[in-house]
């Protein structure tokens, strides 16, 4: 019964989405007042119904209802509670339902809370949101019904990919989904604004909180995903440039660019067409990412959700929506008035540089990701891996960070280069001192890229807090703190990356019980291996006593696990975190003569990578709260923001 109610709710919601599109059409094209009134409750009802459908699917998984095909295929009655819960979206159908649920709930939120847009654009936006939802409803209901019954019911389920049985991963995909799908709101805003030709500062201020919200979720999702890959896969790496990782990185890059260009549009009423373009591109990247992951068109270590026929469906949706939006852009954008022009030495010019660099990085990641597909057409099998990406993206990312040293210290409209030099001097000095320190203190020569990484990290760290100097800290708006913390997070992250790649130490050993290894001042004693069993796995577990300066600091128990259902081996590595880095321990294969493979890494300050990611997300959150509070307070002024917002106040910095 629950499954049938869920399916009915979905059909009803799809019908409401159709109605919503129709209402938007009559309201915008004909100015029908009834349609204008009706559209908001319809959007809200649609959100509630899909939310209900998602909740019902979760309930079916929790009850282990094996008469539902999806539950039988992806769950197991023996599975721990949290994975039954997460199993609801750990598969194709469930994740598509989650996608549509988030999309229509985001639409409901736009209907309820968006006050900044003018009325016609708001309604056009809701219409665009309904239009994209319709495609996904069709996909879900016609090609991937999550509530399909299994007759006769299965005795028990088939389990969930053991790699996915990890508490971190239970909530990783939904976080990313909130980000991907949240960008659909930006897309709908752009389409709505193109339809009503209302691309202006007011539009930018309205779109910004929605983009921020999606961007925060993406940042958290990417950071968490990176940490998950780091400890679960047992390879000691934190980013693999795998197509699926790139799929989450590309929308993030586009959304980051969009956030900054929206700020220019909101403050200076410039970059109108560009901001619209980025809104379309950001969501396009979300959908392309989903397509690449779901269609199996690219081979990936993440390929546990692959189906070529479904790929065709997503590709068709991509063609219709993104192609349609780009056509609309080409037809309409020249009727959008050109925005203001600006000076080369100014905050907005530096933000344009930021946008250019982000877009070039985005383009190169996209090309690198699609390249194997291209070469396969001419019969070549290649894989584009870390060597390409690190060599190409690394320098560009460093250039972006260098721009970040200067950008926040520039004034809007026009700035004096000499005054700018004085303001950036502390950051430049910090960079120079770091360069000397790295060259003098590094125990072995490190590459120019990691050296530059340290230098840039130090300069960005100083430059990012510089906007706070000389300010009344209590009267500084929350979103300025947000910017400072997010930029500081970039510095922390870059420092972590540089430190990890320059100073990691690795030890590979064939160990007998009783052997001791030393790495970076840590003594690791191998006491032996014993078999243990979990709820649905068995494992060999090593006992490693770690001591430092003769004092035991902990016992690590890495495992080589074997899941029974379906049979899959995994490694459970152990990380021992100290303030100065992480000791990373992996138990490998048993060798024939009773020895065991051990892999031990010392990764200095590796945790900074994820602390940095967390700070970036936190900065985004502060900016979001600050922006929303300010909008609430100031009402809906249609004028561009006062130029001082977010910029160093005039006279606060010695000029």
């Amino acid at each position, binding site marked *: 019964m629950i499954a049938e109610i869920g399916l009915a709710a979905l059909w009803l919601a799809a019908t409401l989405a159709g109605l919503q599109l129709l209402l938007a059409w009559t309201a915008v094209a004909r100015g029908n007042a009834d349609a204008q009134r009706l559209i908001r409750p319809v959007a809200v009802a649609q959100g509630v119904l899909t939310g209900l459908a998602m909740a019902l699917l979760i309930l079916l998984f929790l009850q282990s209802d094996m008469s539902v095909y999806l539950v039988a295929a992806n769950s197991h009655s023996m599975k721990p509670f949290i994975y039954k819960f997460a199993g609801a979206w750990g598969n194709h159908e469930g994740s598509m339902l989650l996608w549509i649920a988030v999309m229509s709930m985001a639409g409901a939120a736009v209907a309820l809370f968006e006050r900044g847009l003018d009325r016609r654009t708001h309604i056009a936006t809701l219409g665009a949101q309904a239009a994209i939802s319709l495609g996904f409803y069709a996909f879900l209901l016609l090609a991937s019904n999550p509530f399909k019954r299994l007759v006769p019911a299965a005795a028990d389920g088939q389990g969930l990919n053991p790699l996915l049985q990890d508490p971190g991963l239970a909530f990783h995909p939904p976080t990313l989904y909130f980000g991907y799908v949240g960008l659909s709101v930006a897309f709908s805003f752009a389409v709505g604004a193109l339809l009503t030709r209302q691309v202006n500062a007011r539009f930018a201020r309205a779109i910004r909180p929605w983009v921020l919200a999606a961007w925060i979720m993406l940042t958290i999702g990417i950071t968490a995903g990176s940490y998950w890959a780091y400890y679960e896969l047992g390879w000691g790496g934190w980013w693999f440039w795998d197509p699926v990782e790139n799929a989450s990185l590309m929308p993030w890059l586009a959304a980051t660019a969009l956030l900054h260009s929206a700020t220019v549009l909101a403050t200076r009423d410039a970059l109108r067409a560009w901001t619209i*373009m980025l809104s379309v591109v950001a969501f*396009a990247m979300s959908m*392309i990412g989903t*397509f690449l992951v779901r*269609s*199996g*068109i690219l081979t990936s270590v993440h390929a546990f959700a692959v189906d*070529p026929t479904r*790929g*065709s469906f997503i*590709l068709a949706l*991509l*063609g219709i929506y*993104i*192609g349609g939006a*780009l*056509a609309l*852009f*080409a037809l309409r*954008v*020249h009727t959008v008035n050109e925005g203001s022009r600006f000076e080369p030495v100014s905050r907005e010019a530096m933000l344009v540089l930021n946008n250019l660099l982000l877009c070039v990085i985005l383009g190169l990641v996209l090309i690198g990701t*699609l390249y194997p*597909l*291209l070469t*396969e*057409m001419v019969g070549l099998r290649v894989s584009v891996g870390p060597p390409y990406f690190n060599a190409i993206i690394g320098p560009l990312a460093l250039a972006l960070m260098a721009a970040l040293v200067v950008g926040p210290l520039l004034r809007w409209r026009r700035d004096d280069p000499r005054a700018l030099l004085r303001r950036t001097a502390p950051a430049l000095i910090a960079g120079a001192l770091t360069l000397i320190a790295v060259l003098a203190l590094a125990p072995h020569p490190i590459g120019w890229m990691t050296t530059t990484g340290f230098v840039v990290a130090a300069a960005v760290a100083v430059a990012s807090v510089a906007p706070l100097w000389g300010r009344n800290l209590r009267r500084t708006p929350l979103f300025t703190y947000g910017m400072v913390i997010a930029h500081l997070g970039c510095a922390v992250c870059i420092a972590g990356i540089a430190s990890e790649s320059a100073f990691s130490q690795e030890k590979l050993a064939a160990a007998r019980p009783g052997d001791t290894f030393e790495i970076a001042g840590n003594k690791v004693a191998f006491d032996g291996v014993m078999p243990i069993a979990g709820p649905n796995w068995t494992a060999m577990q090593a006992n490693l006593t770690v001591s430092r300066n003769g004092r035991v600091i902990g016992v690590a128990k890495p495992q080589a696990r*074997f899941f029974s259902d379906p*049979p899959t*081996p995994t490694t459970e590595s152990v990380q021992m975190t100290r303030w100065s880095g992480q000791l990373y321990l992996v138990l490998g*294969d*048993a060798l*024939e003569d009773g020895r065991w493979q051990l892999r031990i890494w010392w990764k200095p300050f590796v945790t900074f990578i994820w602390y940095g990611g967390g700070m970036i997300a936190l900065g985004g959150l502060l900016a979001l709260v600050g922006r929303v509070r300010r909008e609430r307070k100031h009402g809906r002024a249609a004028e561009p923001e006062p130029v001082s917002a977010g910029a160093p106040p005039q006279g606060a910095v010695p000029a």
Partner: protein
Amino acid sequence: MKRSLILWIPLAGYLVFLGIASLGLNREQQTVIESRMIGKEIPGIDLPAASSTNPALSTKEMADGKPRLLNIFASWCVPCAAEAPVLAQMAQQGVRIDGVAIRDARADVDAFLARHGDPFQRIGLDARSTLQFYLGSSGVPETFVVDGKGVIRYQHIGAVGPQDVDTLLAKLREAES
């Protein structure tokens, strides 16, 4: 005019992407990964015995002048159970078959052999897919034809069905010459 043409560039670029993607999607998916070891000598690896009835397997001893089948299987693998009667029939016809049990346990292999028959002369336990990796085999079951000099001559991917027997026998005869 010029400006409005530029505005269509994003759409054009996007259509190129869609074209490539749809071509890529409709291209034949290569699901079978063939070993690159065919025509090369089998890597020498000693494996412990996988069952209590059959002796251990060393691929170093395969250059004994006579061709054989090397069957990659596992007790937890359903198609392996399906191919067992076919292998048993071939063994009765005098074909030499050695087995490699992948990621298995001795008790499980014993149970598997008791249930599905034992066509194997030797069975090695490949607990971590070491030999499987060196053979270039990507799954279970797979069956290799190894000639009397220890050179891999042929790879059969998937379960051996009755329709495959003639091919395998022919490849064995070829390997003899």
